[in-house]
C-alpha cells in the first residue's frame, strides 16, 4: 500500500505534447479514476506510472521513492490490460503464478497465493485451462487474479472492462469495487466511460488534450464542474448548453437568447454581474429540466417543441427545440406527449451552470 505522487509530469512524443504538467497525489488505498476522451493522455500517464513509457520531465513517486528510472519490475505494481494480455501458452495457474515465479517465491507459497486469489475471484475450477478456453469475463478475472496474487503496492487498470459486453461490464464493475474494498490496495484506473468513473472512483481525474481538467469526488464533478468540458463529459445524457446574453433590468439579472429567457438564480448573480451585456454559456442537465407546473415560478420557464421522444422505461428523454437550438429533457415516464407538441419546461434554479464563453471556465 502506498500513495502515488505525480509532480509536473510531461510527456512529449517527438513534436506531440501528450501529457502536460500533471500534478496529482493519489492517496494510500484510494481508487483513482482517470477519465477522458481518447487521446487525452490518460493511458500515457498510467503507462508512465507503470514504467512502460519514459517520463519527459517531472517526478513520479510511489510510496516515498522516486521511481522515474526504475524498470517496471522494480516498481512493485501490477497492471491489468484492456485485452487481458494473458500468456496464451500457459494455463490459468501458470499465468497467475508467473509473477511470483519470476520473483523466486517458494512453490508452496505460490500455490497458496494462487489458490487464494482464485478463491476470491471464483475461478478455482479454471486453473488448469488455457486462456483460449475461457470466455471474456473469465479472462478478465484471470487477469485480475494475476495482479492480486502479487500483493503489489499499486494496481493499474487500463480500460479493463472495455472488451466485455454491456451486462458483464456492469457485473465486473461491481466486483472490482468489492475487490478494492476487500484488498484496500491503491488503484489507478483508466477509462473513457464516465459511468465507470463515477461508480468506481473515490476520486476522478478528468483529462483532455493532455491537461488535467478537474480532480474531485464523483459528485463534486457532477455538481460543480470546473469548466464546460467537464460539465459536458460527466453525466448521461450530456448537459444541455446554450449561448445566452446576460442582461440587467430593474436590478435583476436575466439570461436571454431567442426562445429562452431565464432569471439568473441568486446564487449565480454575483458571479454573472460582471458579465452583464456579454454572452455566456448556460448549462442545464436534462434531469434538471421538468414539465412546468403551477408551483414553478414563471421566471424559470421557457417554451419548447417536442422533436423526438425516447422511451427508456424508467424515464422519457425528450429532444426539444428551444428557439433555434435543441435541448434534451429527462422527464417522468408517465408523461403523455406527441411529436411537435408545444411544452413549457422549467429549469431547476439551484442547478444551473454558467461558463465563460471564451475560457469555458465555470462562473
Amino acid at each position: 500500500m502506498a500513495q502515488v505522487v505525480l509532480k509536473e509530469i510531461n510527456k512529449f512524443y517527438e513534436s506531440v505534447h501528450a501529457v502536460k504538467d500533471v500534478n496529482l497525489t493519489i492517496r494510500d488505498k484510494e481508487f483513482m479514476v482517470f477519465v477522458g476522451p481518447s487521446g487525452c493522455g490518460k493511458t500515457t500517464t498510467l503507462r508512465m506510472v507503470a514504467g512502460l513509457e519514459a517520463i519527459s520531465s517531472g517526478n513520479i513517486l510511489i510510496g516515498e521513492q522516486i521511481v522515474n528510472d526504475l524498470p517496471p519490475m522494480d516498481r512493485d505494481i501490477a497492471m491489468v490490460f484492456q485485452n487481458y494480455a494473458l500468456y496464451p501458452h500457459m494455463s490459468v495457474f501458470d499465468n497467475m503464478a508467473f509473477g511470483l515465479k519470476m520473483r523466486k517465491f517458494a512453490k508452496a507459497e505460490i500455490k497458496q497465493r494462487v489458490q487464494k486469489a482464485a478463491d476470491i475471484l471464483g475461478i478455482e475450477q479454471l486453473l488448469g485451462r488455457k486462456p483460449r478456453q475461457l470466455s471474456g469475463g473469465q479472462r478478465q478475472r484471470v487477469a485480475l487474479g494475476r495482479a492480486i496474487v502479487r500483493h503489489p503496492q499499486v494496481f493499474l487498470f487500463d480500460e479493463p472492462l472495455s472488451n466485455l459486453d454491456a451486462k458483464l461490464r456492469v457485473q465486473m464493475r461491481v466486483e472490482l469495487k468489492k475487490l478494492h474494498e476487500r484488498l484496500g490496495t491503491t488503484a489507478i484506473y483508466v477509462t473513457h466511460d464516465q459511468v465507470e468513473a463515477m461508480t468506481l472512483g473515490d476520486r476522478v481525474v478528468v483529462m483532455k488534450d493532455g491537461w488535467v481538467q478537474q480532480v474531485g469526488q464523483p459528485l463534486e464533478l457532477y455538481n460543480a464542474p470546473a469548466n464546460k468540458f467537464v460539465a459536458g463529459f460527466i453525466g448521461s445524457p450530456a448537459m444541455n448548453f446554450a449561448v445566452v446574453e446576460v442582461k440587467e433590468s430593474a436590478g435583476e439579472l436575466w439570461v436571454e437568447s431567442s426562445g429562452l429567457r431565464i432569471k439568473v438564480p441568486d446564487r449565480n448573480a454575483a458571479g454573472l454581474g460582471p458579465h452583464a451585456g456579454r454572452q455566456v454559456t448556460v448549462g442545464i442537465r436534462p434531469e434538471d429540466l421538468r414539465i412546468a407546473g403551477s408551483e414553478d415560478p414563471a421566471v424559470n420557464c421557457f417554451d419548447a417543441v417536442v422533436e423526438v421522444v425516447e422511451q427508456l422505461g424508467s424515464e422519457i428523454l425528450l429532444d426539444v427545440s428551444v428557439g433555434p437550438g435543441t435541448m434534451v429533457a429527462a422527464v417522468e415516464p408517465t408523461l403523455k406527449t406527441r411529436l411537435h407538441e408545444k411544452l413549457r419546461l422549467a429549469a431547476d434554479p439551484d442547478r444551473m451552470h454558467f461558463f465563460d464563453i471564451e475560457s469555458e471556465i465555470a462562473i
Partner: protein
Amino acid sequence: MIEGAIWRRWVFFRIPLFLFILVLLFPFYWMAITSFRPDGELYRPWNAINYNPFWTWKPTLVHVQYLFRETMFTTWLWNTMLIALASTAISLVCGVFAGYALSRLNFRFAGLLGTGIFITYLVPQTLLFIPLSEIIRNYRLGDTPWSLILTYPTFLIPFCTWLMMGYFKAIPRELEECARIDGASRWQAMLYIIVPVAVPGILSAGIFAFTLSWNEFIYALVFLSSPEQKTVPVGVVSELIRGDVFFWGPLMAGALLGSIPVALVYSFFVEHYVSGLTGSVKG
C-alpha cells in the same frame, strides 16, 4: 466457396481446381512412375506398338537398388540433412533475435536496417556465389560441409529475420509489458513469453529455411567437388548424367527419395505452419 447455381461451382471452382492440381502434381507423378519402370520400357521409342508412357505393368526396384549400391546416395542424403539442419539452426537463432530486435526495440535506423536486410535477400545467388567462392577459398573451406553451412545463412538469415519480424509485430505488445511488470527482465520476457508464443512463426521459418537449404543447388555445385561431399541435388545430377547420357531411372528415383524428407517435414508441421503464415495469436 462460390455461392449460387451448381454449374457456377463447377465452372468457377471445381474444374479450375482440378486443372490446377493436375498441372501441379503431374511432374511428381512422372518422377514416381519413371523411378519404378524397367529400362526396357523407359527407352522404348514413342512410335512402338506397346508404347505407354503413363503406366507400367512391370514395376521394378532396380533403379533404387542402383542408386544405393552404385552411387553414394546415402552419403549425399546424410550430407544434405546435416547441412540443412545446421544452416537452418544457425539462421533460426539469428533470425529470431534479429527479428525481435527490429520489431520491438525502438533504436535509431531500425526501419532502415529492416529494409536493408530485406534487400540483401533480393540479391540473386547467381551473382553472390562469385565473391563467396573467393571467401570460401581464402578460408580453405572448399569441398567441406562448412562451405555450405556458413554460406546458406547468407540468404536464410534475411529470410528468417523478415518472417519473424512480421510475426513478432503481430504479438500484442501488452504480453511483454505485462511480463515485465510481473518481474521479468526484457531477456526473460522474450524467452518465457514471446518465443513460446511465436513457436508457429519459428516453425514456419524453420520449415522454409530447411526446404531452401535442402533444395539449394548453385552453392553446392560450386563449392563442393568430390562425390563424397556432395548433397542430393548436386550428387544426383552430376553423378547420374554422364556426358550426354541420362540415367533416367536412378535420376528420378534419387529425386523422389530426395523430396520425401521435405514432404515429411511439411506434413508434420502443416498446422503450425499455416497458423504461422496467418499470424494468429489470441490473447
